[in-house]
């Protein structure tokens, strides 16, 4: 089936540095999402994005976080500066539309380690 591609799969970065996580959504999907997962536990919503704008964000989406998708390229999550507590697996997802039963397709995640 259609896939969401996430690059890189792993990233180790020094605290305070900037990191950009890249997501290539399903081609005809219009809504994009980032989720954070720590130690295989609960998937925590960060942000959703549609038509070039952030639609909703959670308290976990700190001021150091930003998202964009310039001209249909990668949907990116940027963290600047990074903190130790940002270490987690970040999952990108996309959906065709924003209706109730529009299913998400998730990528395989980017494992971020901040040291």
């Amino acid at each position, binding site marked *: 089936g259609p896939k*969401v591609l996430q690059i890189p799969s792993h990233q180790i970065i020094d605290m305070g540095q900037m990191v950009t996580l890249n997501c290539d959504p399903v081609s005809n999907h219009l809504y994009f*999402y980032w*989720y954070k997962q720590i130690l*295989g*536990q*609960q*998937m*925590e*919503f960060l942000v*959703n994005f549609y038509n070039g704008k952030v*639609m*909703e964000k959670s308290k976990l989406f700190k001021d150091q976080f930003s998202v964009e998708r310039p001209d249909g390229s990668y949907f990116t999550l940027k963290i600047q500066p990074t903190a130790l507590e940002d270490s987690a697996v970040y*999952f990108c*997802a996309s959906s065709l539309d*924003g*209706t*109730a*039963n529009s*299913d*998400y*397709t*998730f*990528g*395989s*995640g980017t494992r971020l380690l901040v040291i």
Partner: protein
Amino acid sequence: QQQVRQSPQSLTVWEGETAILNCSYENSAFDYFPWYQQFPGEGPALLISILSVSDKKEDGRFTIFFNKREKKLSLHIADSQPGDSATYFCAAKTGGYKVVFGSGTRLLVSP
């Protein structure tokens, strides 16, 4: 606060048994409930889902039972196989809002 709760946190069944995973929710506005299956090192993948207008949804060995009045649902995995060993997330959604995930149930199917 936890909008979607799952139990048990972990579950072990023998091959061939039926695994029952439970889920409850708080927000009455939730009207769509997908279940996701996640294997280690992978992203969650949609397994089966149900709309709140239904009380049961079957797909092969997987069945969702839904009780709107009690705000509870359960996923039954019949004839469990070792390959079903994974983490299962109950999730909930309403309208154009985000999917809210439960904390997951880790299922181990022993041969």
